[in-house]
């Protein structure tokens, strides 16, 4: 299979790093080779946050080449515009889904999981692995609610 490139971007505190961790884990549980690259440190201080997730049989570069992103998940308008050049010509920009999520989900803390649900519709990762990955990366007291929101994003 061709390597799939997923780029998350936004600002500190939006749960971007957690979302990227969940996809990466889920893909690994399904037997794919995964590389996930990000630079932390500034996330808690409101700075820009980006995470590159690459899934395939054998992944080399930890970062996505400009213009090669299959799925762009932006959590903020300014960051979306800054990173739009990373998208492939026929790549999928999920920013409209993010805007929709803002209206649909009352607690902004769960928007990241909603977006994972949306992303899951495009990827061939088993539901079992998604569940296992969420269980691994999300605090037990928030797990049920997150799974619920994930399913909401995953609808249709």
């Amino acid at each position, binding site marked *: 299979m061709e390597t799939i490139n997923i780029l998350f971007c936004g*600002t*500190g*505190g939006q749960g971007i790093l957690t979302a990227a*961790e969940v996809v*990466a*884990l889920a893909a*690994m549980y399904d037997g794919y*080779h*995964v*590389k*996930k*690259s*990000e*630079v*932390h*440190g*500034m996330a*808690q*201080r*409101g*700075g*820009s946050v980006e995470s590159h997730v690459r899934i395939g049989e054998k*992944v*080399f*570069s*930890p*970062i996505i*080449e*400009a213009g090669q992103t299959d799925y762009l998940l932006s959590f903020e308008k*300014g*960051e979306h515009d*800054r990173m739009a050049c990373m998208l492939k010509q026929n790549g999928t920009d999920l920013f409209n889904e993010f805007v929709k999520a803002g209206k649909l989900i009352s607690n*902004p*803390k769960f928007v990241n999981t909603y977006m994972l649900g949306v992303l899951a519709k495009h990827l061939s990762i088993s539901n079992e692995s998604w569940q296992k990955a969420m269980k691994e990366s999300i605090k037990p007291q928030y797990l049920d609610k997150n799974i619920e929101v994930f399913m909401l994003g995953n609808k249709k």
Partner: protein
Amino acid sequence: MNNYKLLSGNEALAQGAYEAGVKFAASYPGTPATDILEYFTQFKEVDAQWAINEKVAFEVALGASFAGVRSIYSSKHVGVNVCMDPLMTATYSGINAGFVIVTGDDPGMHSSQNEQDNRLIAKFAKIPLLEPSSPAEAKKLIKLAFEISERFDTPVLFRITTRIAHTKENVEVGTRVEVNDKPFEKNPAKYVMVPANAYKKHINLEEKLIKLQEFSNNLQENSIEIKDKKLGIVCDSVSYLYVKETYPDASVLKLTMTFPFADAKIKEFASKVENIVVVEESEPFIEEHILQMGIKCKGKHYTYRVGELNPESVRDIVEGKPKTNYPKPARKPVLCPGCPHRATFVALRKTKVTVAGDIGCYTLGATPPLSALHTTVCMGSSVTIMGSLTGILGSDKAVAVIGDSTFCHSGVEGLINCAYNKVKGVIIILDNGTTAMTGAQPNPATGITAKGEQTKKLDLEKLCMACGADIVEVIDSSCSSIENKIKELTATNKLCVLIVRYSLCKMIDRTKKPAPKVIADKCKKCYMCITVDCPAIVKDENGNIKLDNNLCAGCNVCAEQCKFGALETTK
């Protein structure tokens, strides 16, 4: 079934070292290397310690090797500068049990003051250098590092970069293999580096390097892949992965042991390909060596010595083009909402004194609108630079600002020096009880060890008095009179220490107080409230003040700036 985990480069190398029987680990926090030591703290078999600084970390780790257990030092690249003194002589004395020095370089300066290339230290210090390209490779390679260390009686430099340290991938996790402790034998000729002994050890070291080069020549990890003979690329570290991505059909010489250079492999590769291009981040370290060997090769344009490489820049390098694609300006980081430093910087801005800053979260006070920090060089330099600024410009013209962890690291020496050399001036210790910039690690003033155990707590007030400060005062960081206190102390013409204390930093303490309420009718749109540079309070597209209740921690520093009562504090 194999046990795979999604591990970062830092975690993978620490896991590898654990499996290799490491019993001692020491470090000082610094991005991108902090989580190496943090990973070791989970193992009861490993004595994992935060040291007060990198020189001390290096020496205690070297001491553990002398005492007979496998030992590891880790820090960020500039941390290695701090331990250069013991490092340069440990290469002469050699080790007892295996000793590995991990350097986390930061090309692109994601969180550093420079982007020095620590591969050059291997040549300068005459020690073997290993460089993995990925987390999975780091895990395997660290075991080899310990074997080389013991086989050749030398510390081994193990270099990763931010991109490797913070990338995660599937890594196979295995079990620990215990290694027998090596008895320590009194041997002055080896362990006492006085001139007569060191002279012999230097002769021995030069011979060792020849043997290490033979080893490097035969090491399968220095690997040749022949495909298209028209293009031969020599690369190391993460650059290898970018090359594989962008030029999958090129012939490649991957150098994994980058010092001593595998000259035989380089010659063999040169004989098999028509053109050689060197793809490496930072300095032209490999390129210069190949040219020195009399082999024709093309390196990168000098503009590519700046910043990180990526898959597309490899194409520029092969085509001989200069760097044109500089990173787009991203959102600047700011102090966390509720950060105890914010009130001090708002006060400092009003006093208009020159502020000698240091390394830590407070560098975030340098940019507008706070603009209240005017020098930053290296760890501890606030106190010393303040000493000269006040000496030359006047004792009320400058102050030093330093955090509690940085003060313990190397600020205290500056204070002793100030007292000894009769400096008058104010040192402000921002004591949030943690090492916040790197994610809240404990330090001596916290009174908790790396493993979370209670220990002797350093008393900063007594320490500063003992160093020779004339006045030591403590003030609460939430106090609105910090400004007056700074003015009062700068006017004393004495050596003063003002400890601005907060019981818990927001990095640890996530409890919040109620956010102030915006009373829109009273707002005159002077925007003084947003000059505190807090992400929780912003101007919306219509010019109205908006407070984000999710982010706000209720510190009320913004409300204190409002003269019109438009930000109502809720008690």
